């Protein structure tokens, strides 16, 4: 992975089991934690590589998280009649832990 500085449109999130998800930077920024990690003004390796490893979140879970980030991004400006975000109950607890970690005003 070449070191690329400067704002790239897409960033990568890596789950504990090695799955990589490419999402828009603006979607990742919905989560305060991710936004901080990827912020170009910090000296984090994640920011330099535009890649965040999340060893406490599994692949399936991370996929759901990405889905939520896009859902939030898409409906930010019109919170009126938005479709429900479907969460399978078995995932609810772990998703809660993950979202708590990812923090952010919106996450």
């Amino acid at each position, binding site marked *: 992975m070449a070191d690329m500085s400067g704002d790239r449109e897409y960033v990568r999130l890596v789950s504990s089991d090695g799955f990589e998800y490419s999402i828009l930077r603006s979607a990742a920024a919905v989560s305060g934690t991710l936004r901080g990690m990827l912020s170009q003004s910090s000296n984090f390796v994640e920011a330099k590589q535009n890649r965040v490893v999340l060893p406490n979140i599994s692949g399936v879970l991370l996929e759901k*998280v990405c889905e*939520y980030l896009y*859902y*939030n991004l898409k*409906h*930010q400006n019109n*919170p*009126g*009649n*938005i479709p429900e*975000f479907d*969460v399978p*109950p078995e995932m*609810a*607890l772990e*998703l*809660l*832990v993950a*979202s*708590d970690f*990812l923090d952010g005003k*919106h*996450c």
Partner: protein
Amino acid sequence: MSRNAGGSRVRGPNSALTEFLRERGIDANAIRHRYEETLQQQASASSDTVVTVSGSSATSRSRSREVETTVASSSRSRKRTKKKHEDSDDEGEVLARMARPRPGQIEFCAECQCRFTVTAYSKAARDGNGLLCHSCGSKYAQEEKQQKKTQISSRKRKKSIAAALLDKQEFAVPKLQDMCIKLIARYIEDVEMLGDIGDFNMEKIARILSRNRSLKDNTLKLFLNPSIKRLHFWDCSNLCSDSLELIGSYCPLVESLTLSMCGQMTDKVIDYYSTNLRNLHSLTINGGFLITSGCWLRFFDAIGSQLNRFSLANTLRFNRESLEAIVRNCSGTLEELSLSRVGSLKVEDISLLLQLPRLTALELSYMRDAITDDIMIDLLRTFGPQLVTLNLDDSGDLTDKFLLEGVRPHCGRLQNLSLALCDGFTDIGVRDVFKDWEVNNGLINANFSRCVNVGDAGIQALIDHSAKTLVVLNLNSIYKLTSATFQLLASSDCEFLSHLDFGFVHCVGDEEIEVLTERCKSLQLIEAYGNIRITELAKIKRGVKVAGRQSDSL
């Protein structure tokens, strides 16, 4: 003008106005169109026609003259309706001109020119110049339906925004955490162990469960954990006495316990707490009306000496003896005491509180009969100087005497003052308390809601005194206020004011609220119920929630 309304007389319910208009064939589109055409005619220089819109002088002569003129712009249908004008009102050219053909008559469709029989439901042509046959009319039915739908949905949206405001919720995309918590709460009965999700989220879940009333005997165990120190359940109505006891056995280390709506709590539970909860120093029981005064006696005798904070609300079984027990056991440690809606206490009983020298927070609300000027002045003389919080809501027997001889001289440390529903205070009284009140550094929370005899002088004195420290200000129903007070508020640099309630204060309008949101930098929530002069046009600064505007739901 009697009309024989042709066709079926069986109609669905309509307002009287609708029926009236329909019977007379009065159609808004047609009227508008005719008026516009008249104006056009007036503008276009047409020599011989004297088309007058001023209807009052309409005579049959001028009407017939129009019929004879061969002005190019007059259309066939208008001529035709002229002939039928004997059925129309005499109230003006315009109305006269748009007499509609009666149901039952044969007309030519304005669009497809086919012949059809006019019914009561024949739609007017788009340009108002005639009627449409059934098939042409139904073409537009789809469009009209769509219009109605969007109207309804926009009304719904307005309602949901207003509802969200009323709940003081952010109207934004729901947070993932919140969604998960909601989901968990819904499936709580199936989930075995909630695992480690942090105290803060536990409390959030407990709150949501209480809101959905799903805190039941079988879900309670999920929240009990031997290491818990603070436990707050806001709705225990579905918890039976045995479950409440469980709290005592599963969480012996708990230090602060709040149980609201715990109507099923019995003496057994309190007795169990008094033996098992060795670390308890703060207890709030709201609605435990089954607990007898004897039980309270035993409770205070057992662990009164470690109690730092005690709050009781909504019971009639707490009397002088119980209060004596508190005084006997807790005088050395009790710092916060709150008794609300404890109807069994009398004025003489309150004097027992003089023996609690360490009190810093006192609430004696909604106990009108027990609170008088003299007793409160005595209390304040004793521990006024150390009192930080004082709440005497709904103590209508209090008068200015209490303010001037009790609060002003003694309450130097007071920060939170709540005197809602106290209509015994006058404007001058309140003014005299706050004017040059040097002993006191400024109130943080001030609640004078429903003190209807207070006015500008009093509240302005309050603002002058506490502007720099106020965070929460409640002026609900102080209707005598004028906008001068609010201008003062805006110009007083209230940098910490974040919650303002001025419901039912009629003088507040769009201007005042705009200035307030501009100048008070920390404002987060404004409650404006019943302020009819605030409309949706008011420019509210971003980030400030305004709840209760009439325009939100209409």
